[in-house]
């Protein structure tokens, strides 16, 4: 595949909104959403329940038409194209299998509709059954199999016609840990092999981080940030994004001075301490006197002595996670702060609750949020 083709835009969502109902019960399920999803990309929509993930998928699939805005699939306007004319298939959150058909008949449905030759249909069905490990249940009716099995059939059914874009609405939520891990790897492999663009919805941030090429974090009908897992994790722009993915510390900082530039940098004082830090300053914050900074718990280090520490506080709690331990501190100004550190064999440092400890934070780990 040539580079230009790979980087081509598969789905272009341009200023799309979807409102349900009317005043006073108007629900803005999506409000002015714009994203570009590249061809053969594993793109994940991540966000809390009710933020509009399913609604966005339904618009792309064509089950609903947007209240306003425009959508393109491979540079063709599909805003008002019916779903049966879009090369887009969906794995539904509720599975939506056909209860009067068998597992195999469910999987072959799309292929039959595309009028594929008989031998090709049966070959593809067998291939799909093998993929989702459902060969033995081929002739079962779909109301006679378990939830996890239904989910796998739904996946096979949507994959069978080899669409340009596959929409997956929490397709692994009903599977147990082991099967889920297996399917994650299978999905990733399939996406790479088939060249299908995957748009994936999940609640599970770990799943989102491990599988995605890019992630869009959504909240309340808006897309807050789009980026690679790395960008989303290390450079969240807003408090919501930082809070939703991984663990975070938010502390108030005083803005001492701002140096103009691209990007602007600021000199900051953390939580009432004297020492100043330099950090990039979002353009929207350049006039503010205070800012919220964000620090990942694993980017802070705990030390026994308070001398030379960035912050000091009292240990209030320790949570053991096997590989790591979370140390909960109450800083001198009363704010809470968490440090996560890896447990090492023969670790000499064993703090006890109530100890006065120091926290060392590298300048690079400090980031100013937009809000």
């Amino acid at each position, binding site marked *: 595949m040539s580079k230009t083709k790979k980087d081509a835009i598969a789905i272009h969502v341009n200023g799309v909104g979807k409102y349900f109902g009317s005043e006073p019960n108007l629900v803005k399920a999506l409000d002015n959403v714009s994203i570009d999803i590249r061809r053969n990309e594993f793109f994940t929509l991540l966000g809390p329940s009710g933020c509009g993930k399913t609604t966005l998928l339904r618009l792309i*699939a064509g*089950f609903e038409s947007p209240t306003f805005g425009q959508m393109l699939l491979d540079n063709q306007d599909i805003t008002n194209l*019916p*779903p*049966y004319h879009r090369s*887009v*298939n*969906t794995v*539904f959150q*509720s599975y*939506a*299998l*056909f*209860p*009067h058909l068998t597992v195999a008949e469910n999987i072959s*449905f*799309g292929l039959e*509709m*595309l009028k594929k030759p008989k031998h090709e249909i049966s070959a593809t069905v067998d291939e799909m059954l093998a993929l989702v490990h459902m060969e033995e249940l081929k002739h079962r*009716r779909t*109301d006679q199999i378990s939830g996890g099995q239904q989910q796998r059939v739904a996946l096979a*059914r*949507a994959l069978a*016609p080899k669409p340009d874009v596959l929409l997956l609405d929490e397709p692994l939520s009903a599977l147990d840990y082991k099967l889920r891990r297996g399917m994650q790897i299978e999905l990733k492999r399939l996406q790479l092999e088939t060249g299908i663009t995957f748009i994936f919805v999940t609640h599970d941030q770990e799943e989102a981080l491990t599988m995605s090429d890019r992630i869009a974090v959504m909240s309340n009908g808006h897309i807050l940030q789009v980026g690679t897992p790395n960008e989303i994790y290390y450079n969240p722009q807003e408090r919501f994004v930082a809070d939703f993915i991984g663990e975070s510390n938010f502390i108030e900082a005083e803005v001492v001075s701002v140096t103009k530039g691209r990007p602007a940098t600021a000199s900051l004082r953390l939580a009432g301490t004297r020492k100043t830090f330099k950090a990039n300053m979002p353009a929207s914050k350049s006039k503010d006197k205070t800012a919220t900074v964000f620090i990942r718990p694993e980017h802070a280090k705990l030390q026994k002595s308070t001398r030379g520490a960035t912050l000091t506080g009292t240990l209030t709690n320790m949570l053991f996670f096997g590989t790591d331990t979370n140390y909960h501190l109450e800083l001198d100004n009363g704010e809470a702060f968490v440090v996560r550190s890896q447990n090492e064999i023969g670790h000499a440092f064993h703090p006890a609750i109530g100890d006065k400890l120091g926290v060392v934070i590298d300048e690079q780990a400090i980031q100013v949020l937009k809000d």
Partner: protein
Amino acid sequence: MLNRLFWKKREFSVTYQFGFATIALICFFALYAPITTLVFYSFNAGNNLMLWEGFSFHWYVEASKNELVQEAAMRSLIIAVCASLISTLVATMAALGTTRTAPFKGQKLIFIMINQPLMVPEIVTAVALLIFFAIIKTFTNYYGLGYLITAHAAFCVPFAYLPIKARLDGMDLSMETAAGDLYATPFVVFRRITLPLLWPGILAGAMLSFVISLDDVIITEFVKTAGQDTLPTYMLGQLRRVITPEINAISSVLLAVSLVVVTIFFLFTRKRY
């Protein structure tokens, strides 16, 4: 059933309330004793409705030889079959129109209008039809079974509509959505997904309207022209003259037909999905 009522005493259930079993038994008795008596006396050898004079199929033979009964039975069947087919077709379209389209203004009103015939006293409908058809008859000079079929089809629509509507309401739209997603055009979605899933509801509607049409008296009595007796109106006519166990025999057969229809319905809809 009775076993359940009397022996399953371990878990809490309303059936252990004082007097529950008694009330249940009284209800069953009130419901089934008259019918049992009716069927029982249809096998009476004598011509009295109350004096038992030995077992015989005499009145069944008698009824089946009676030409009036034969004609009335044939007429009843033709009307019931035609009326239930027409009303089920109309009801299916009405149910699809009121559940499978985007919500539109006046949807509630249409729903109420479809079901209104259930509320209007039958005698009112009957008189209205009598007058309405009388006008048409003078204009067209047509006196055939068409009027009865039309009348039956009309009042059967709500009976056919309700089970179909109930089935559609219980059917998740997401399956039709999924079929559309898998490249099925709306017509194919209807044929391959909606219709097969709706089938038990349609069957229930058809059977219900068949049975309702089969035993209708009031509207038939008003709408029929001379010599257009159906089984129920024939029986009504007989009751005004001599009463013999022949009536019991005919009633028993009607009862049997209803039972068969209900049984077929259960067998067809047992597969649940």
